C-alpha cells in the first residue's frame, strides 16, 4: 500500500482519511480498501523513511489534522515503482499442487478435486456477476477491476479443463 499512498500524495497533499476516501471512490466496493488504522501506520512508516513529511493544520472547533506531502525522496521511490514491471502470472498454484500430489498418495480422486474446485470458481463467478450488474454508475477503474477478476477466473477455469483433459 506504500506506493499507492505515495501516488495519491503526488497529486496533492492530504490527510489519512482523505486518502482512504480516494481509494474507495476510485476502486469501488469490489476492492476492500485498507482500514484507517492501516493507513495511519503506513503514513507513519513512510515519514520515518523520509518519503513523506507532515504538519498539523489547525481546524475550527475540531482537533488538528495531520496533512502529509511527498518529499523529493518519496517522489523518486514513486517514479521507480511506476516504471518497474510487475510479476507475471503465477507459476505455482495451490490447487494444482493438490491435484498433482494428493492422488499420488491415494488421498483423492482427480475428477472429484476438479469438480469441487470448478464449483467453487462458479460460485465466485456468481458473486462477480452480481457485483457487475450493480456497477452502471461505478468508475471505469472499479468496473475494470471486476472485469479483470472475471477474465482471470475464466483463465483458471480453462486451465482446470486442460488438467481434466490431460490427467483424468
Amino acid at each position, binding site marked *: 500500500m506504500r506506493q499507492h499512498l505515495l501516488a495519491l500524495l503526488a497529486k496533492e497533499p492530504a490527510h489519512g482519511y482523505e486518502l482512504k476516501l480516494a481509494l474507495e471512490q476510485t476502486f469501488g*466496493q*469490489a*476492492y*476492500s480498501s485498507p482500514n484507517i488504522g492501516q493507513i495511519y501506520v503506513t503514513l507513519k512508516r513512510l515519514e520515518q523513511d523520509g518519503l513523506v513529511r507532515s504538519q498539523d493544520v489547525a481546524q475550527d472547533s475540531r482537533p488538528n489534522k495531520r496533512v502529509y506531502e511527498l518529499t523529493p525522496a518519496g517522489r523518486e521511490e514513486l517514479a521507480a515503482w511506476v516504471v518497474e514491471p510487475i*510479476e507475471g*502470472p*503465477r507459476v505455482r498454484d*495451490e490447487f494444482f499442487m493438490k491435484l498433482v500430489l494428493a492422488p499420488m498418495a491415494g488421498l483423492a480422486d482427480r*475428477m472429484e478435486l476438479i*469438480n469441487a474446485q*470448478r*464449483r*467453487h*470458481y*462458479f*460460485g*465466485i*463467478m*456468481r*458473486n*462477480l*456477476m*452480481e*457485483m457487475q450488474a450493480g456497477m452502471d454508475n461505478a468508475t471505469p477503474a472499479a468496473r475494470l*477491476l*471486476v472485469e*479483470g*477478476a*472475471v477474465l*482471470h*477466473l*475464466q483463465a*483458471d*477455469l*480453462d486451465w482446470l*479443463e*486442460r488438467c*481434466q*483433459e490431460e490427467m*483424468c
Partner: protein
Amino acid sequence: MLTPGGRPPNPGAILGTRGLVKVYRPGGVPVEAIRGVDLEVGVGEFVAIMGPSGSGKSTLLHVLGGLEPATRGEIWLRGQRVDGLSASAWAVLRRKHVGFMFQFFNLLSTMTVADNVELPALLAGATSRQARKRREELLAELGITAKANMAPSRLSGGEQQRVALARALANEPSLLLADEPTGNLDSSSARDVLRLLHRAHIAGQTILMVTHDAKVAGLADRVISLFDGMIADDAKVVPAPRKKAPVRDVFELRG
C-alpha cells in the same frame, strides 16, 4: 430401460433424457459423441452445459432439439416422448415449443430483421397482425426497434444475435436452446446478449445453453460439465462464501 409409453424421468421437468447415446459413423467407424446422458431441466431453469471442445456439448444440444436423431435412449419434452419423432414432426414441435439460438445467428439474409422475427409466429399460425405485434414487443425489449427494416447483414454481430434471440422467443417457447450464443461476439456485445438472456430467464424463460463463456456460470442456476460424451458434474451454482471483497478471492491468491 423403459419402453415407449413409459413414464418420463420426472413429470415436472420440461426436458428429460435417459441413457441418451449418439453415435456418428464417419467413414464407417463408429464414434460415440454422447455416451449415456441422463439429465433433466425443470420449468424456469437456466442450465449451462460446459466442457472441452469435443466433449459432445453441441451434439447433445442438437439431439435434444431434434436437429439430429438420437442413436439410443429417451428424450422427453413437456412430458411427451420425442426421440422417435420424424424430422417433420420435430419441426412442428420446435415451431411451437423450442426456440434455437446459434453461434453464427443463422438469420435469413434475404429478409428484413422484422420479417426474420415475424416468420416463426406466422409459420405457427398467427395472424400477420399478431405476428407484427409480437415482433414489435420483442424488438423494443431487446433495443433493436430502429433496425427493423434493415437486412441482417447490415447489423453488428451483437445486434444480429439480439435479432436471433427475438426470433427464438417469438412463439414463447417452453424451452430456449442456445448453442454458444456469445462465441462469435466481442466482449461487450457478449455481455449485452448475456444480460438479455438473463432478463428473459428472470421473466420465466427456461434456457439450456452450451457455452465456453464462464460468465454464463455466474448467471445460470446450474452447470452441467460434459466430458467425453458423459456428464462429469451437474451442480447448482451457489455463491461462494464472501470473505472480504470477491475480487480478492481471485486477485490476492496470486503471486
